[in-house]
């Protein structure tokens, strides 16, 4: 599964917002064909880490390597140019447009041969490609011409994920893809994430829901107060161990990092 050199590798990445050390010398890696679950309590730095990779915040310190090459990611276009796609929690879909229009938003296909002024949209080609992409991903949607606003939350999430794949990315970052979804819809989205893995993409899933993370992730990476607080093979560990890494409260002997701010324990128990 995660053999060979990592696709994306962060080394000693730090980010500070004023007095807050949001990320403190974090090492992080994703391999092709691997799903990494990124977990941690609120304020642990998950979102900051993802935004650093996505180019929304530039890292203060540390190096980022993509396919072995050292790269600098200082704006979102840098990340998309490398092949890193991000699906944000609030989806960023236009409810009033149909599935095809949303998928191709901002990169519409234009009919060949027409003048620059008229530039007619090639609806047939876009619909054809949408159909192919969604059926490859086994995403079922009543009609490609349904308005996105009429779809269920799970379908919308799947459309958002499918949209990120149009740019042929190598790494996909998913921010809370199963938040606010029902059981069946969550299962659909997790199934879609597995299909991304089959396509040899590197997938990073941020989630609060450990059940979902265990369901889909190969590796679980825990952040706590901006630092790496543990890395687990999803098949070889238990929820208890992960929870203790998230909260910093020691469970039986799993490697427990030095606690930068003691006395904050007991927060995450109810998450388990």
């Amino acid at each position: 599964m995660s053999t060979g050199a990592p696709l994306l590798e962060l080394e000693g990445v730090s980010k500070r917002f004023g007095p807050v050390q949001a990320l403190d010398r974090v090492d992080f890696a994703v391999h092709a064909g691997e799903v990494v679950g990124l977990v941690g309590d609120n304020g642990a730095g998950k979102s900051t880490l993802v935004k650093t990779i996505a180019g929304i915040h530039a890292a203060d310190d540390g190096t980022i390597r993509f396919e072995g090459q050292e790269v600098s990611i200082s704006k979102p276009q840098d990340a998309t140019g490398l092949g890193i796609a991000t699906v944000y929690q609030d989806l960023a879909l236009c409810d009033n447009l149909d599935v095809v229009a949303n998928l191709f938003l901002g990169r519409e296909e234009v009919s060949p041969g027409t003048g620059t002024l008229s530039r007619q949209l090639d609806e047939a080609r876009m619909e054809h490609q949408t159909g192919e992409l969604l059926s490859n991903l086994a995403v079922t949607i009543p009609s490609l011409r349904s308005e996105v606003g009429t779809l269920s939350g799970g379908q919308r999430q799947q459309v958002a994920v499918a949209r990120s794949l149009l740019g042929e990315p190598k790494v996909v970052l998913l921010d809370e893809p199963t938040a606010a979804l029902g059981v069946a819809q969550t299962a659909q989205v997790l199934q879609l994430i597995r299909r991304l893995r089959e396509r040899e993409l590197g997938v990073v899933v941020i989630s609060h829901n450990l059940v979902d993370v265990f369901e889909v992730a190969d590796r679980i990476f825990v952040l706590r107060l901006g630092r790496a607080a543990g890395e687990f093979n999803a098949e070889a560990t238990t929820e208890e161990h992960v929870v203790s890494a998230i909260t910093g409260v020691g469970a039986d002997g799993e490697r427990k990092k030095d606690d930068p701010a003691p006395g904050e324990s007991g927060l995450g128990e109810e998450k388990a």
Partner: protein
Amino acid sequence: MSDAALASADGEEDLPRRKETIRRLVQGDLASLRVVIGLALIWAIFQFENDRFLSAQNLTNLMLQITAIGLISVGIVFVLLLGEIDLSVGAVSGLAAAVMAVLSVKHGWSPYLAIAAAIAVGMAIGVLQGSLFSRFVVPSFVVTLAGLLAWQGALLQVLGSTGSINLTDPKITGLANTFYSDTVGWIFAAIVIGGYGAVLFLGHRRRVAAGLDRESLSGLVFRFALVAVVTIVATTVLNSDRGVPLALLILLTFVVGMEYVVKRTGFGRHVFAVGGNAEAARRAGIPVNAIRVAVFGIAGTMAAIGGIMAASRLLAVNQNSGGNELLLLAIAGPVIAGTSLFGGRGSVWTALMGALVIGSISNGMDLLALSSAVKFMVTGGVLLLAVLVDAVARQQRQGSGRV
């Protein structure tokens, strides 16, 4: 996809598609049907009250009456699609007409240059207002309200002490007062019918080539027949009076052209996206502010063109040009015909259909010699009804939006 797969899928997909049609009808996507029914009702009532209403002469008058409002509404549709409002279009139409009149009559400019200057003024004003709105994030309502006052002042300034300028140039007065012979009228009709048939056929062929579901043949034939019948009936009626008016052709050209821009081009798609979810549009790399400026530029341009047509019909520009209820009717029209005030939904056809509805009500009440008091109240009632229907449709969409 193979034909066999398509054939087997057809039966199963029939039901969802029918459900989809019903949903669209209920939730107002097919508001065009609603407005056609409304228009038929209005025509029936007025015809019942006064049998001159549906006479060829009166219907020709109606077409001439709706040209200016319809053209201004075309620009308003773009603004409404963004979820914004432009209150200055009435004043801009008056100012642009005044600029044209002064240049043509007082300075002896050629009619083409005078018209071009008037359109340029409208466009510049729209771009200015759009820039202020997007650059400083001031509500468009306030920017264009300020514009409404300022451009009305500018109109008085441009007209000068006389307060009224009579148009003399035959090219300018001809815009709203030219009628074509029967033969020319039928040639136009043939172009419309043939062009629509070609668009339907090419679109169908492209979908077949791409292996996509296509509309049933009966649906295509129905749509083609509908347009053909309407065109033939309209041409017959207009020919039996003075003939097809140039003004109507100008209006139709802009409606069809702008509908193409809105529905078939990347720019139009981006207008819908910004109106639906500006943040999503921004993240998709769409230049949101440039779209906004362009849309207000279009609104100003169309206002100027509408103003020119109104002046041509009146044969003069005066202090009332672009004033009175013109602004509100130009906004009310598209809303009545189904363009949402909340942004992201609508079409340029609603400019034409809305102008027809409002024009019919106004024309019919004139025939019945009703007082202005009644006219205003009835028009207000119709607008309120339309906005309520729009709001209810929106609530239903939201209700069924997320499971």
